[in-house]
């Protein structure tokens, strides 16, 4: 009975009459019921009326804060047209009415709606959707004959009033509208409920916010120029596309433009979750016309052309600037591939683009009148963008951020608008900002509110553990010898180990990981921030942390001699190393020793006492008796640990495990803990640590899958497609090796056999090719793919996840929470459901990829800066190179000295070929190139020369600078013989490696900023400032770890 009474009090039923256009164009009269209620939550912290505000997904975070000085309610038009302004991080406390959201959804685009949703989901914005049409006192019925716009602004104002009254006038409300009529009608109706235009609002409230007015201006100009036509005219209607996709006539996929031949070549990668091997190859899109105004990354629909019109892709390595279409024909290969044209676009996937104004003065002539100007995007794959701006003079030599708006049917270029400037061209900070934007990485400093959530640890107010928390945990401080093994000087230790013998003779192995989830609550600001970052980003000269430094390098870091909270996995093993029992749980530990790799290895090899004591500060200053006991303990533990890991590794390898740690550095970075890997030499102890981590990850994966069969976060590595190995097999065959790719085990074995005694680079290159053939490992939610796809090809494990580095990967944080719920410490209510987890896994995958790309780009940036001022005949610019791939007009080479790959052209644009004359100098003359499977031959009148795979040649590196794009290295053939005194160069010049590149570039950049840019405020103090605020100490940067990998690879076997 109570239920029915409740219902009647709470809900009032009304009806809404709508006219809906049916699929056949008929208008249909529809009546929908609508229930009005009193209890629509206001979601404000200032609420006095006990609204049920905790219903939202994010707990207390996703609501209007009481720190805002006012709340903003945009009307429908503003929400649609100026969403970008509302997205500015400083503007907080926005209330989107349901009316506005509907309008964005139906009158705007799907993309716009997604952006609006992301804005709401972003807890930092403290913005909400208010369901005004369900609130009894905020709803206004649309009167018969009332104009839609009029009704919308009336609804919005009523919502404004409601908020103001509901919060008892505590806070002023601002309604943003561009409707003059509404401003006149409502602006003076109520005190503290303001109605104004966006312009007035920005001028009045956000004067101090730099650049926001510019953004407003450029948005307004872009709007003025927007033609009435819909974006999508010229494409087939959506229902035709959908029907076509279903019937198989059209194919949908993601457009990917070939970076090296952007104007003609693009591919459509078939999308869809079914990653079946039989889904043939990608569809080729030839030329801008068939690309039909789609842009790299868009989700498009393709129609396949009849086979007679199929084209082959160009096999030449194209110079980037080549626009010469006529010459492409002869380069095309005979083998044609499925070719298509784009008939529709399902979803635009535009991001922010970095662009530069063209240096050509002519093209900018009429710009000062606010006319249009073309800018060249940094990314080769993106066409030029037409923007309207009045600030051309100011921005001429800067890199600017541009967003796309539309692409008209009759236009050669898409339209966009200017967002903000990134800084002067060629400045190091600008270039780094550029590559962050290009990889969609946002790295703002942590906000005060985020820091405030976390405990502090200062000298006058040190952080301490609470007894209550300790009593809840398993205390390992007395019972276990816990120690860590890391690179020298490592600050953020997130894993430690322990091993001991039990009374029954069994072995007990423990892995203890920093308990980050204790400090970061699900849904807190720090959590949201960490989720959006997903990973720590390591660039060559700096690092962008995922979680604030107070945690990453202090409270969560398991340094020796300090009590720390940890998450532990402890196995009990029999004498034959079979796991008997496994225990998971929260613990308190104190690491006894913080070892580094070299000393651990020395202990295993039987170093004498003095050497050990000298290198382990924890052992110094003890009396002799205690010292002996502790040394004994330590020796035993390290030795035992290594023998256990050896067995585990053997077992995994014999089960078909690809021995990744020797396959290639990159894979290893991917699969195990970077922090645990070798800085100096490849020692056995590295494998020991990596193996323990893999073991822990595997067992945690088992546990969470058992408890959450449908929503556990795991990591899989699909088996590679066999045809991807073609290149590898071909290359190996040219050297007379046979590669068996049928299984991961056979692949590993055959790779081990491919060793050329005279040339260590052969094996290196083949292994790299093998890695290219594999797909990357990915996170996924167990509910979203079939059980037989959970396996990890590289590690040969049926289940795998990431658990051991919660400080720098968000996936590990989720896994920690899932594990806690699985062992019953935490409740599982707050865990993400399969759907959310699936989206999250995608997000993390994308972020990881972006972080890797950014890392690679920053290395390239530093390379190019390094070679910038070198004279071409500088000794450092002339290096030895190995040919590893052949193309029609040249070949790709690998330069072991710098670890760089690049193209070498044998034929230039004029059709001349290069050959090495009698005096050993390269000359350009007319001639022909003949290519077969294993070699390429240059024929000229005088002689001919043959270049085979794995030949060593000498090349000269020079910098090909570019204004709009990233600078690239140009390689020129100097000699067809290896560089003389090659060996001595390799060994003697170890010091010129990539870390020196970074250092040297940094120092020159500092000088540069002193001289050329006196206005740059960091100026002469830059080095000092960097010391103080720079996030990464050079000696700790991941870059250096990379570096050492390179060094290892350079050492002759």
């Amino acid at each position, binding site marked *: 009975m109570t239920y029915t009474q409740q*219902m009647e009090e709470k809900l009032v039923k009304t009806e809404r009459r709508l006219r809906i256009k049916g699929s056949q164009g008929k208008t*249909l009269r*529809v009546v929908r*019921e609508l229930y009005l209620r009193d209890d629509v*939550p206001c979601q404000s912290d200032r609420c006095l009326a006990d609204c049920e505000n905790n*219903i939202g997904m994010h707990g207390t975070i996703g609501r209007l804060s009481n720190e805002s000085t006012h709340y903003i309610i945009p009307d429908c038009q503003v929400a649609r047209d100026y969403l970008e302004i509302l997205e500015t991080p400083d503007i907080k406390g926005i209330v989107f009415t349901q009316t506005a959201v509907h309008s964005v959804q139906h009158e705007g685009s799907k993309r716009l709606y997604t952006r609006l949703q992301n804005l709401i989901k972003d807890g930092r914005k403290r913005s909400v959707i208010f*369901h005004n049409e369900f609130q009894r006192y905020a709803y206004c019925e649309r009167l018969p004959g009332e104009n839609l716009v009029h009704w919308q602004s009336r609804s919005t104002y009523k919502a404004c009033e409601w908020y103001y009254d509901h919060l008892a006038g505590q806070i002023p409300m601002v309604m943003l509208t561009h409707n003059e009529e509404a401003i006149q009608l409502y602006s003076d109706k109520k005190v503290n409920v303001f109605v104004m235009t966006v312009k007035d609002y920005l001028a009045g409230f956000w004067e101090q916010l730099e650049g926001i007015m510019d953004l407003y201006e450029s948005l307004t100009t872009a709007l003025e120029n927007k033609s009435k036509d819909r974006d999508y005219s010229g494409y087939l209607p959506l229902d035709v596309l959908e029907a076509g996709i279903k019937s198989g006539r059209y194919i949908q996929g993601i457009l990917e433009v070939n970076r090296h031949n952007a104007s003609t070549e693009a591919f459509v990668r078939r999308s869809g979750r079914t990653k079946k091997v039989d889904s043939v190859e990608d569809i080729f899109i030839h030329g801008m016309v068939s690309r039909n105004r789609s842009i790299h990354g868009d989700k498009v629909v393709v129609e396949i052309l009849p086979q007679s019109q199929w084209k082959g892709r160009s096999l030449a390595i194209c110079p980037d600037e080549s626009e010469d279409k006529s010459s492409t024909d002869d380069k095309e290969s005979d083998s044609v591939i499925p070719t298509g044209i784009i008939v529709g676009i399902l979803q635009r996937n535009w991001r922010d683009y970095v662009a530069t104004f063209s240096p050509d003065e002519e093209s900018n002539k009429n710009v000062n009148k606010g006319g249009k100007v073309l800018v060249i995007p940094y990314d080769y794959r993106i066409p030029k963008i037409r923007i309207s701006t009045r600030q051309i003079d100011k921005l001429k030599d800067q890199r600017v951020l541009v967003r796309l708006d539309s692409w008209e049917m009759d236009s050669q270029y898409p339209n966009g608008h200017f967002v903000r400037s990134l800084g002067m061209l060629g400045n190091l900070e600008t270039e780094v900002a550029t590559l962050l934007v290009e990889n969609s990485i946002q790295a703002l400093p942590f906000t005060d509110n985020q820091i405030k959530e976390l405990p502090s640890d200062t000298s006058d107010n040190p952080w301490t553990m609470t007894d209550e928390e300790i009593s809840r945990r398993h205390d390992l401080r007395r019972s276990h010898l816990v120690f860590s093994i890391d690179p020298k000087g490592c600050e953020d230790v997130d894993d430690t180990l322990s091993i001991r013998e039990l009374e029954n003779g069994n072995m007990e192995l423990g892995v203890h990981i920093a308990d980050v989830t204790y400090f970061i609550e699900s849904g807190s600001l720090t959590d949201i921030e960490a989720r959006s970052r997903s990973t720590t980003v390591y660039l060559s000269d700096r690092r962008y942390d995922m979680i604030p430094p107070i945690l990453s390098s202090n409270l969560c870091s398991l340094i020796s001699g300090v009590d720390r909270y940890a998450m532990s996995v402890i196995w009990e093993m029999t004498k034959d190393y079979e796991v008997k029992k496994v225990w998971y749980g929260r613990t308190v530990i104190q690491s006894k020793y913080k070892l580094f790799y070299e000393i651990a290895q020395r202990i295993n090899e039987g170093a004498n006492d003095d050497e050990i004591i000298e290198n382990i500060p924890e052992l110094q200053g003890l009396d002799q008796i205690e010292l002996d006991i502790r040394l004994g303990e330590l020796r035993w533990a390290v030795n035992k640990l290594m023998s256990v890991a050896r067995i585990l590794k053997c077992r995994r390898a014999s089960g078909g495990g690809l021995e990744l740690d020797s396959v290639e550095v990159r894979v290893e970075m991917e699969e195990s803990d970077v922090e645990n890997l070798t800085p100096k030499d490849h020692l056995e102890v590295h494998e020991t640590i990596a193996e323990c981590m893999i073991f822990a990850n595997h067992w945690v994966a088992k546990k969470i899958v058992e408890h959450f069969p449908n929503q556990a976060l795991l990591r899989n590595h699909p088996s590679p497609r066999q045809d991807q190995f073609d290149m590898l097999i071909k290359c190996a065959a040219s050297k007379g090796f046979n590669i068996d790719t049928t299984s991961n085990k056979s692949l590993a074995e055959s790779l081990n056999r491919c060793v050329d005694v005279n040339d260590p680079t052969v094996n290196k290159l083949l292994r790299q090719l093998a890695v290219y053939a594999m797909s990357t490992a990915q996170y996924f939610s167990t509910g979203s793919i079939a059980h037989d796809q959970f396996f990890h090809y590289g590690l040969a494990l049926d289940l795998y996840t990431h658990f051991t580095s919660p400080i720098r990967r968000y996936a590990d944080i989720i896994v920690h929470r899932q594990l806690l719920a699985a062992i019953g410490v935490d409740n599982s209510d707050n865990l993400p459901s399969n759907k959310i987890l699936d989206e999250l896994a995608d997000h993390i995958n994308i972020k990881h990829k972006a972080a890797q790309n950014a890392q690679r780009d920053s290395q390239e940036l530093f390379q190019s800066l390094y070679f910038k001022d070198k004279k071409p005949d500088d000794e450092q610019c002339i290096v030895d190179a190995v040919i590893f791939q052949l193309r029609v007009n040249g070949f790709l080479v690998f330069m072991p000295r710098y670890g760089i790959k690049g193209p070498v052209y044998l034929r230039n644009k004029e059709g001349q070929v290069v050959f090495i004359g009698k005096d050993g100098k390269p000359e350009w003359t007319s001639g022909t190139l003949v290519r077969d499977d294993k070699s390429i031959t240059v024929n000229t009148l005088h002689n001919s020369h043959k270049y085979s795979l794995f030949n060593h040649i000498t090349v000269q590196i020079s910098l090909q600078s570019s204004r709009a794009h990233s600078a690239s290295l140009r390689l020129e053939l100097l000699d067809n013989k290896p560089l003389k005194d090659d060996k001595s160069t390799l060994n003697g010049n170890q010091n010129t490696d990539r870390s020196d590149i970074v250092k040297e570039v940094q120092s020159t950049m500092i000088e540069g900023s002193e001289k050329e840019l006196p206005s740059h405020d960091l100026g002469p103090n830059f080095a000092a400032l960097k010391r103080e605020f720079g996030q990464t100490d050079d000696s700790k940067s991941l870059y250096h770890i990379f570096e050492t990998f390179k060094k290892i690879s350079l050492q002759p076997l």
Partner: protein
Amino acid sequence: MAGLELLSDQGFRIDGRRSHELRKIQCRLGVFKQADGSAYIEQGNTKVLAAVYGPHEVKGSRAKMLQDKVLVNCQYSMATFSTGERKRRPRGDRKSTEMTMHLKQTFDAAIITNLYPRSQIDIYVEVLQSDGGNYCASVNAATLALIDAGIPLKDYVCACSAGFVNDTPIVDISYLEESGGGPELIVTILPKSEQIVFLEQNSRLHEDNLSKVLDVASKGCKDIYAILDRAVRDHVSKVSNVANTTE
């Protein structure tokens, strides 16, 4: 339909209900004088009229007659004006035949059939306006009409539908929510004994979620029971008042 958000992040459905809330139910008993029992029910915008005749002799072919229990005869039909577009709806089409069968099965199980061997009870159901949950409204209306006719039932028969959106079960789904293509579970129970009389599912639903959705639907049935019961009591007291005053 793709753009419609059936359940917002704050837990509101398109029509402003929360996931566990029923549509507004209004009902009346004894709307016709000619029939032995009749009832009218509105569930949101779904409006259904039911009339019951009997028990009486078996009409038509005597072959249909059952020796041990009463023959329950149902007929379901939709008015031509019941949907947005006027459409002629012949009686014998597949959809209404199916619905008729379902109703017959439901009431065969709920009526104490062995009290009237060799006789027949007719249940006529007419949907006047359709906005989702036609079967549920029909069952609820027919129950009221049977009670009005004084036919002994084991218990009230209450039907309610439930859907599943964004990992949340939603109760009493409307036409708009039905047409989204998501899973739909229709449950008919005897509320006191909580026995399930009838259960139908459309579209796929993961096994793990079945019990969640089923619980929500049963809860909806019990809420409907409370409403029907009150309507019956009101009606009875009104009738007895009228009887008292005429005496």
